[in-house]
């Protein structure tokens, strides 16, 4: 709660004023029964109707004041709670921006999104309710009791007894149900999971004729959920009747005691009516308080979760200034680099060393999980190597200031994602200052010109969320263009042509190779044909370098490469065997 309280500090005035005004409103509620008592005791007993009219206007005044106080309280509460939520959301968002990829992996995207949305909303709700109501209910309950004591000590003792008893019953039932409710929720989640599973797997379920089993499993879980629900229901079914009986029994005691007190002249009839009214106020407030506590508990849990994210410290630090402007003709160098992802014991890559000259094209090939993407992710410092050193332009990547390294690298990730906005907006991600001409050039190279030209509004065509209005291949071409717009020194294509047909893939590689300048290109692929023409091919196998060199060299020397290549182009093997035979002959 510490962190969220920090945010409340910016709304000190509101956080104090809101409950204060709320209390003043409750005070009006507490005075009302006294006025009614006065009407009975003085106005009626003395047959003084002018006094009654005075009391009436006093009641109206109380109502008006109560309304005014309450409005003021609500305004401050709204301002404080929405303010806290707004600032919390912004801080959280900025905090997430500052985290590095390892922390993002550990936290998980879904978690972060939930924290940003529903959890913050719950916090807002909780703050609002707390400011408005948390003090009000206890105030009225204890206020009623104190008022009772001012009227008559003996009668008030009944209040002193019934309030704790009612509290025990209300909170006892509530405390017992809370853990059960979460059990109900998890039963419901299980049922929901089964339904979803049944739907996503409908083809497999039907292919294996498992319809009956699906129904049985669902029925079992459904039955368990019903049982759990009924169990919790039996408990909460007690709440209303029990509190009703208790408060009315207390009222019976009150009337009997009141009868004695009135009889000996301790109190007047109007006082008894006032006590009766206070009794009625207590129960309403106790039940309100109970449900309020549930809301606050939920909000606290959400606040806790938000804080856990805020407590995650960014795992990367950057120097304040660049060391020296070195200039090397080696663009990228790995020195004995090993890396393991957070939470994993095994290395994703082990002892990788290689160096790439400026302007070279490097192919990286290997099976799934062989560490291809990991290698290229270390170049723009998405992750820090666990051991060893990664150098770009002769300089350790850790010595670059924040943002300066990433400017030089164009990354095309495996998953082609576009953002809502226009095509131009998306292209400007690469470089805020790019002109339309820059964009068209990049599109040309990425084989995306025809995609954009096919759209009615060209660069101003809307891209819907996630780029749903573009096909996979179109999206890939646009994401490649986006990376090219920044005219990077290093271009990384992380298996980013997989949705392109072979002919387009070929044209793309030719266009990139034909670009002016001295761009270093990394092509990650599972297709041997995509990396075949590279100046250097790194063959990865289970996180280690199984070979590096040109296509021809590797075909001679590297067994893993041969296996990959020939499995994709078997007749080459035939030809080769034939060639060998000829050579032998």
């Amino acid at each position, binding site marked *: 709660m510490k962190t969220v309280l920090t945010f409340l500090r910016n709304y000190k005035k509101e956080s104090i004023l809101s409950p204060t005004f709320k209390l003043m409103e409750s005070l009006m509620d507490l005075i009302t029964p006294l006025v009614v008592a006065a009407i009975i005791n003085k*106005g*009626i007993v003395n*047959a003084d109707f002018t006094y*009654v009219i005075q009391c*009436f206007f006093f009641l109206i005044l109380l*109502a*008006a004041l109560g309304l005014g106080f309450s409005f003021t309280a*609500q305004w401050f509460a*709204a301002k404080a709670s*929405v303010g806290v939520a707004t600032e919390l959301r912004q801080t959280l*968002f900025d905090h997430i*921006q500052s985290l590095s990829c390892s922390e993002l992996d550990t936290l998980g*995207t879904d978690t972060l999104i939930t924290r940003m949305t529903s959890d913050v909303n719950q916090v807002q709700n909780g703050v609002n309710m707390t400011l408005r109501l948390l003090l009000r209910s206890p105030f009225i309950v204890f206020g009623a009791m104190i008022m009772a004591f001012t009227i008559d000590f003996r009668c008030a003792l009944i209040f002193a007894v019934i309030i704790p008893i009612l509290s025990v019953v209300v909170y006892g039932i509530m405390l017992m149900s809370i853990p059960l409710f979460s059990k109900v929720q998890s039963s*419901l989640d299980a049922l*929901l999971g089964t*339904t979803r*599973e049944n739907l*996503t797997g*409908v*083809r*497999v*379920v*039907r*292919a294996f004729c*498992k319809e009956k089993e699906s*129904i049985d499993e669902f029925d079992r879980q459904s*039955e368990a959920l*019903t049982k759990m*629900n009924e169990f919790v*229901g*039996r408990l909460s*079914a007690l709440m209303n*009747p029990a509190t009703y009986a208790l408060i*009315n029994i207390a*009222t019976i005691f009150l*009337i009997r005691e009141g*009868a004695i007190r*009135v009889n000996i002249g301790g109190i007047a*009839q109007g006082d*008894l009516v006032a006590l009766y*009214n206070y009794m009625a106020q207590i129960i309403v407030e106790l039940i309100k308080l109970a449900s309020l506590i549930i809301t606050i508990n939920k909000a606290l849990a959400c606040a806790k979760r938000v804080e856990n994210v805020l407590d995650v410290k960014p795992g990367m630090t950057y120097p304040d200034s660049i060391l020296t402007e070195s200039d090397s003709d080696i663009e990228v160098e790995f020195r004995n680099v090993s890396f393991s992802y957070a939470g994993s014991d095994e290395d994703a890559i082990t002892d990788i060393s290689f160096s790439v000259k400026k302007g070279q094209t490097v192919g990286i090939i290997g*099976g*799934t999980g062989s560490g291809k993407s990991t290698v290229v992710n270390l170049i723009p410092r998405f992750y820090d190597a666990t051991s060893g050193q990664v150098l770009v332009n002769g300089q350790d990547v850790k010595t670059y200031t924040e943002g300066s390294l*990433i400017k030089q690298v164009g990354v095309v*990730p495996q998953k082609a*994602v576009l953002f*809502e906005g226009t095509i131009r907006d998306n292209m400007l*991600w*690469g470089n805020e200052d790019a002109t339309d001409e820059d964009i068209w050039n990049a599109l040309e190279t990425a084989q995306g010109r025809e995609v954009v030209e096919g759209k009615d509004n060209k660069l101003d065509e809307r891209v819907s*969320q996630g780029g749903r209005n573009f096909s996979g291949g179109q999206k890939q071409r646009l994401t490649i263009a986006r990376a090219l717009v920044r005219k990077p020194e290093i271009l990384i294509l992380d298996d980013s042509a997989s949705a392109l*047909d*072979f002919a387009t893939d070929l044209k793309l*590689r*030719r266009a990139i*190779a034909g670009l002016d300048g001295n761009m270093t290109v990394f092509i990650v692929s*599972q*297709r041997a*044909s995509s990396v075949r023409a590279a100046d250097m091919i790194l063959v990865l196998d289970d996180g280690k370098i199984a070979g590096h060199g040109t296509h021809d060299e590797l075909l001679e020397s590297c067994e893993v490469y041969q296996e990959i290549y020939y*499995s*994709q182009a078997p007749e080459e093997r035939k030809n080769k065997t034939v060639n060998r035979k000829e050579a032998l002959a």
Partner: protein
Amino acid sequence: MKTDSNSKSNSCDTLFKVMKVIGNYKILLALSIILAGISVVLQLYVPILFGKAIDQIIAKGKVDFNAVSQYASQILVLILIASLATWFMNLINNRLTYRTVQDIRAKAIRQLQVLPLSYLDSHSNGDIVQRVIADVDQLSDGLLLGFTQLFSGIVTIAVTLIFMFSKNVLITAMIIVMTPLSFLVAKFIASRSFHMFKKQTETRGTQTALINELIGNEKIVKAFGYEKRASERFSTINEELRDYSQKAVFFSSLTNPSTRAVNNVIYALVALFGANRILSGALTVGDLTVLLSYANQYMKPFNDISSVITELQNALACAARVFELIEAEPQTPDAENALLPYRGLVDIENVDFSYVPEKPLIENFNFHAEPGMKIAIVGPTGCGKTTFINLLMRFYDVNRGSIKIDGQDINDVTRASLRQNFGMVLQETWLKNGTVRENIAFGKPDATDEEIIQAAKEAHSWEFIRRMPHKLDTVLTDDSLSQGQKQLLCITRVMLCDPSMLILDEATSSIDTRTEALIQKAFDKLMKGRTSFVVAHRLSTIRDADQILVMKDGHIIEQGDHDSLLQKNGFYAELYRSQFAPST
């Protein structure tokens, strides 16, 4: 006007269906209503007795203790009965709601098993899950409880009015006249806050979309150093949201204090007129107490009823969605005969098929496969390759023509017998939540561990299963396996079943080349002597097929084996060559 009456008759229709569903529980529902009536009347009568008791306690020395005791014991009995009635009602309502929910869900899940895939494919999973889970809950909460609440609300109002009239006609009339004021105030505020709420919801929606987009793709944000720009964009919308939220929260929080204020005014008026009546001897102090406590409670059932009605409407809408699912037309009933023992001869004759009538997809499709053949289907995306599988497995029925296996039309045999003969591995891997064993033995629950391990070895999944902490008993979670491993498990699943025919839908697309080669060997073994259909992107995997069907736009444009197709130098040859061309 016409649509209005239409929707009304629809609602009645839905209500009727709900009544039919609760069939067995009709007695419970009736009991619940009776108990609600009892408890409401008693709870309203208790204040009257309290008022009478107070009237016996007038002043010093003017207290009738006997009468007070008598009223006290009457009250005690009444509250005990009322409490018991409420308690039983709650218990009955519990049973009623939860059992009805269970019954409806049981119907829904059975329906899901017989719905045609065309229905399931055209509704998002989220939508259907919502109907089975959330809508059913809403239906029971809203309709059943709403019904009893509505009933007790109406009884409360009626009884309160009768009791109040019996005390004093004038004051009661005044309360009734003042009642609409409270509604007007509430309505005025609601209409003012509605606008702000709408704005808030819209802005929140935009913000959530932005969050989903940016946080969901945080790595791309990082890759382009977009953090600052992201933060600025977020800030703009966040401040906009602050503005609307503040107003929405404020306005909506005005309803309670305002109606309370109106209530307080009514309360003051009752006190004023009551005192006046007492002075003229038409009313007692006890009566005033009763009227005051009624005036306090009188508004509550009105508010309850208005919220119950909204909930009822909501629940009816949910009920309609649930029934839409439950009553959707199931797939055509199964024929009685099982598929006879067969050799694996597949004939496709003059088949037409389309998912939507306006867009013909497969037209006049003809094909003949001899037993044991390996048939590969290739072609660009959307050419109808996977449709082919939908038809063979009878996930969809052909529009025209017929598919025959060993001369038997597949429409004339049971789906189960047809599907049992096929082993299917789909592009989208699906594993159930459960252990590795449960997943592998999915199609053959009585398989022994030896058989499972044997199959796993053949499918090369044993290598990674062996290394898992609990081997076959490891519980699979969403991300405990890589895509490739998931596919290996799916293959193992089929391997264990030892089916007579195979359907492989790009099954090896995300397994790395080396593993794929091993799997290919295992498959070759499995496919031997069995008719197999392979849909593939990578032409390397299907080079040894007996027949390659090259599909484009729902038609077979080329057909033959690899060599003859290459010689033909057509579409296939073009596809094939582009796969292996160097870039420079």
